[in-house]
């Protein structure tokens, strides 16, 4: 793998971004209203990279909330033409480890599948991820509890970190060495400051223990105050459920996939009107278990990356990690009861 770190002086950031944008579509974090989101870089604009979580996950860059998959002419009987995948090179810069982990999970959903999603694959193939090490953890961050760390680089092509006099870059794959070929970057002996991160706590019970709670009253109690809106699912970097719909307007028609949420009553409703997850409790259980148990079974990794976006966004200040803690208590309770009897 590549050599060491390269330093970009703070004053040269704009010029460096311009040079990246010259060869590819460049996406960087941008402040929109009260939150950070990703936006396409425009030459010459001031850009800052948040040192911790970007409130809006980069999920939509790989799996847009509305995604045409085929086009047709509504006036013809049958004229379905698949949408051509995008192919121009793209760089997404500033994704943090939890967000990149989300992409790794999406890879398992969309690519490690008997029927890989070619549109998603194209988005992945055309994208170089320049990830960023976090230099702090926000109160809602808990990646260290989820087998991740603010220093994690898996899934990134290039990583960069804050340093005293600029930004330190390092290529993680051969092919992306060239991105760092810019004369603005100078080889250096400096390394990003090694930080002590909190030790990972095992807040959430393991998949098997959780499955034992499937029929527990816990879910009914826990869902007392859940609104069953979809805010947490849309904020989550690994929630990828979608619906398929046909839309028509004049001579244009599109078949699209659009984000859907397991928290919606309509999501699991069958055509007959029957709904296997009618109760709030059943829906809350589905989401919680999917994050902490089903995802292990289905894709071999937890779909909770510890980003804490669900906590940030929840209208009733519910916290999924805390739900996990309570589940843990319940598991212990059950165990001790079993021991007594």
């Amino acid at each position, binding site marked *: 793998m590549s050599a060491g770190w390269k330093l970009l002086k703070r004053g040269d950031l704009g010029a460096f971004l311009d040079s990246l944008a010259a060869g590819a579509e460049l996406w960087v974090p941008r402040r929109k209203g009260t939150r950070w989101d990703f936006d396409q870089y425009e030459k010459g604009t001031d850009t800052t990279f948040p040192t911790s979580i970007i409130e809006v996950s980069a999920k939509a860059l790989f799996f847009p909330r509305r995604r045409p998959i085929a*086009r047709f002419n509504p006036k013809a009987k049958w004229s379905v033409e698949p949408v051509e995948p995008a192919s121009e090179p793209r760089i997404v810069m500033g994704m943090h480890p939890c967000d990149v982990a989300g992409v790794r999970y999406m890879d398992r959903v969309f690519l490690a599948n008997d029927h890989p999603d070619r549109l998603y694959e194209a988005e992945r193939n055309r994208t170089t991820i320049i990830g960023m090490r976090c230099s702090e953890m926000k109160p809602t961050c808990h990646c260290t509890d989820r087998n991740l760390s603010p220093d994690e680089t898996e899934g990134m092509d290039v990583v960069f970190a804050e340093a005293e006099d600029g930004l330190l870059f390092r290529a993680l794959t051969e092919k992306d060495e060239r991105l760092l070929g810019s004369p603005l970057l100078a080889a250096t002996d400096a390394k990003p400051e090694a930080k002590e991160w909190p030790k990972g706590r095992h807040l959430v019970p393991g998949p098997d223990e959780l499955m034992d709670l499937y029929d527990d009253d816990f879910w009914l109690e826990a869902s007392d105050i859940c609104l069953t809106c979809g805010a947490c699912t849309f904020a989550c970097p690994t929630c990828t459920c979608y619906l398929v719909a046909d*839309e028509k307007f*004049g001579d244009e*028609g*599109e078949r699209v996939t659009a984000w859907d949420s397991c928290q919606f009553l309509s999501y699991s409703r069958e055509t007959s009107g029957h709904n296997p997850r009618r109760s709030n409790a059943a829906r809350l259980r589905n989401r919680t278990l999917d994050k902490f148990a089903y995802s292990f079974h289905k894709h071999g990794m937890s779909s909770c990356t510890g980003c804490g976006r669900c906590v940030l966004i929840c209208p009733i200040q519910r916290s999924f990690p805390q739900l996990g803690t309570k589940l843990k208590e319940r598991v212990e309770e059950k165990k001790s009861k079993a021991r007594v009897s």
Partner: protein
Amino acid sequence: MSAPEMARDPKILAFLCRWCSYAGADLAGTSRFSYPPNVRIVQVPCSGRVDPVMIFKAFVEGYDGVLVAGCHPGDCHYGTGNYHARRKLAVARRLLETVGVHPDRMLFTWVSAAEGRKFAEVCTTFAEGLKQFAGRPKTLAREALAK
């Protein structure tokens, strides 16, 4: 619709109560009163049946104007349908105006079965008024699907 086309014939969607206004439109036709050709009529059982969602949808689908006409107050076939309609339409107008649909794009009025001439006049004046929007982007209208 292209701008010059629109200047000729604004597209109007008219919801007409079957007891009064639809009969009024019929009378306008049989009496050979002329009114603009691009009025597409939807017959409803009562003006009270017009759910504002239909009006919203009409604008989304690209109509230039929406006309709702029912029996005059006191004449409703069902007794009170048009009193309900009056309140619903007031709210619909308020919402549409709030988000920027121009007030001249909606016309809510009463037309009796005998008022064939009034129907023709109402349509003509409404369509004339809509010509001011020719070539201007349509508020609320659905964006083309493909970018």
